């Protein structure tokens, strides 16, 4: 966030350069309200996940046949499901799974994709092979790829993260490779080469900093799509184990009853949509602020 706020600064008048970091950050948020709204909602969701035990929740896995399928009331804010579990507690704890999956996939696929992309961009003989493999992987629709992976492993959060990461890596690798190839032609990179800079130094000083902007935007979109894919996998029964409260699982359990008790699906659906929306807003805002040329078009 600090890097982005300094990026917004150069256009400012001299007087404003004296503004404190906090003031500049506030100004950045004012200028990019979607970053403020998206980031704020996301922090809120993260807090909900972290402090789930303190938010008047009960054991999200406690089964109580005597109070099955209650409608929302003062006692059970979001009602209860067909096993009598408290939907409110399950939804609140579900934030943990979604956020964990979203962030892990974004970070892992960024790191691995970045490595592959840098490698393809610099080791020219390997480029052809790597790009054919990436073309092949990208011709498998991501959700199907994740489904195929999940069919062969036991359902666990860790396996869901691995499956979605594998499905997302090709996109990052391709993006980074494109950035690397265009940066390699830049005069300052050529100058560095002419000065005798070695490849690691060129990558570290000239290439990596320039991949930061497109990568961070891409990472937010991957985070959003990972949360949706996790929910879909859990919804169709190929995701995290049924006992774990995840938004996809809660909806999967509410499926049989949705015509009479739509609230079991509604509450996790609203939470999931808001979280994904927050991540998308953050991504759009970052994209606009990091690349002002794109801001006008997209």
């Amino acid at each position, binding site marked *: 966030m600090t890097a982005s706020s300094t990026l917004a600064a150069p256009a400012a008048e001299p007087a404003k350069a004296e503004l404190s970091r906090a003031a500049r950050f506030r100004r950045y948020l004012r200028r990019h309200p979607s970053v403020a709204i998206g980031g704020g909602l996301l922090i809120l969701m993260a807090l909900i996940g972290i402090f789930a035990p303190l938010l008047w929740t009960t054991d999200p896995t406690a089964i109580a046949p005597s109070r099955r399928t209650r409608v929302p009331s003062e006692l059970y804010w979001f009602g209860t499901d067909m096993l009598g579990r408290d939907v409110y507690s399950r939804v609140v704890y579900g934030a943990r799974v979604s956020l964990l999956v979203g962030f892990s996939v974004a970070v892992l696929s960024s790191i691995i994709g970045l490595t592959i992309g840098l490698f393809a961009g610099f080791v020219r003989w390997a480029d052809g092979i790597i790009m054919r493999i990436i073309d*092949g992987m990208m*011709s*498998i*629709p991501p*959700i199907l790829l994740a489904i195929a992976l999940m069919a062969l492993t036991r359902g666990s959060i860790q396996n869901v993260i691995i499956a979605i990461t594998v499905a997302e890596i090709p996109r990052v690798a391709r993006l980074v490779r494109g950035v690397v190839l265009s940066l390699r032609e830049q005069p300052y990179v050529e100058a560095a080469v002419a000065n005798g800079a070695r490849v690691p130094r060129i990558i570290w000083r000239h290439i990596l900093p320039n991949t930061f902007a497109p990568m961070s935007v891409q990472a937010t979109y991957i985070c959003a799509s990972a949360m949706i894919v996790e929910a879909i996998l859990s919804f169709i029964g190929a995701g995290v184990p049924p006992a774990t409260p995840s938004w996809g699982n809660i909806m999967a359990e509410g499926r049989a009853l*949705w015509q009479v008790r*739509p609230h079991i699906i509604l509450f996790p659906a609203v939470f999931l949509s808001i979280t994904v929306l927050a991540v998308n807003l953050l991504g759009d805002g970052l994209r606009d602020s990091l690349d002002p040329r794109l801001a006008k078009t997209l």
Partner: protein
Amino acid sequence: MLAFVVRRIVTTIPVMAFVALFVFSLLYVAPGDPAAIIAGDQASPADVERIRASLGLDRPYLVRFAEWSFRVIQGDLGTSIFTNLPVTQLIAQRIEPTLSLMVLTLIFAVVVAVPMGVVAAWKAGSWVDKAAMGFAVLGFSVPVFVVGYLLAYFFALKLDWLPVQGYTPFSQGFWPWLRNLILPAVTLGLVYIALIARITRATMLEVLQQDYVRTAQAKGVTQKDVLFLHSLKNAAVPIVTIIGIGIALLIGGAVVTESVFAIPGLGRLTVDAILRRDYPVIQGVVLMFSLVYVLVNLLIDLTYTLVDPRIRY
């Protein structure tokens, strides 16, 4: 042109070969014993061995891959572990509903999204533009099954305008077929509309700044013609490209939409196969969908010459 078509078709062969190799190899690189996982927790050791033999996991990898690819090329995708039916037969039985759903969604999405993107670009910055782009962000954020249940709840349960779920084959009449598919197609189309509308708007914004657009406006061409004849034609290539790439979204979304609306298509087949860990079926569906995806994008490449005569192959 012919040389290009041939070359383009030839380049899809290594891609498909890789997809096949990848999908096949998953069985071998998956952590743990896939035969035991597929058999499930209650299986006896004999069951596990039977599955291991039927998947060919007891024989060397390369031998198995050679055999398997040879059969796939001949159109034999193996046998389902659960039903013991040929995978090709299972797929053939389920193809009509999925194809209907996807074609209908495609038409619906393009008809809605392209004008939406054009108008948004034309009125850039206005409330129309903001509403359209706000809708696009929502389309990306609300998962497809959430949209499905919301639409089904209001339009089927509350208003009773359309059937809640199910599918009627096309052979039983156009109207019953369509009635069952309207809600699923709208559900599946939403994210696709968001994608196409965004790209349409972005490309149109660029085109609208061109000199020839100003010339057309200056010589008194009507706004409608400037937008849809002069500009949209020149913006067509990226739009057509994104329609092709977005097919992946449709395929992924179909799996979920079919579950929500109980449509007995390939998506349902995939979900059933997942629950029974019927890997040959999943493998077959993934291969088939990937082939469809690659072929559609090949076709799209070829249509570039139609939408833009400047492109010659």
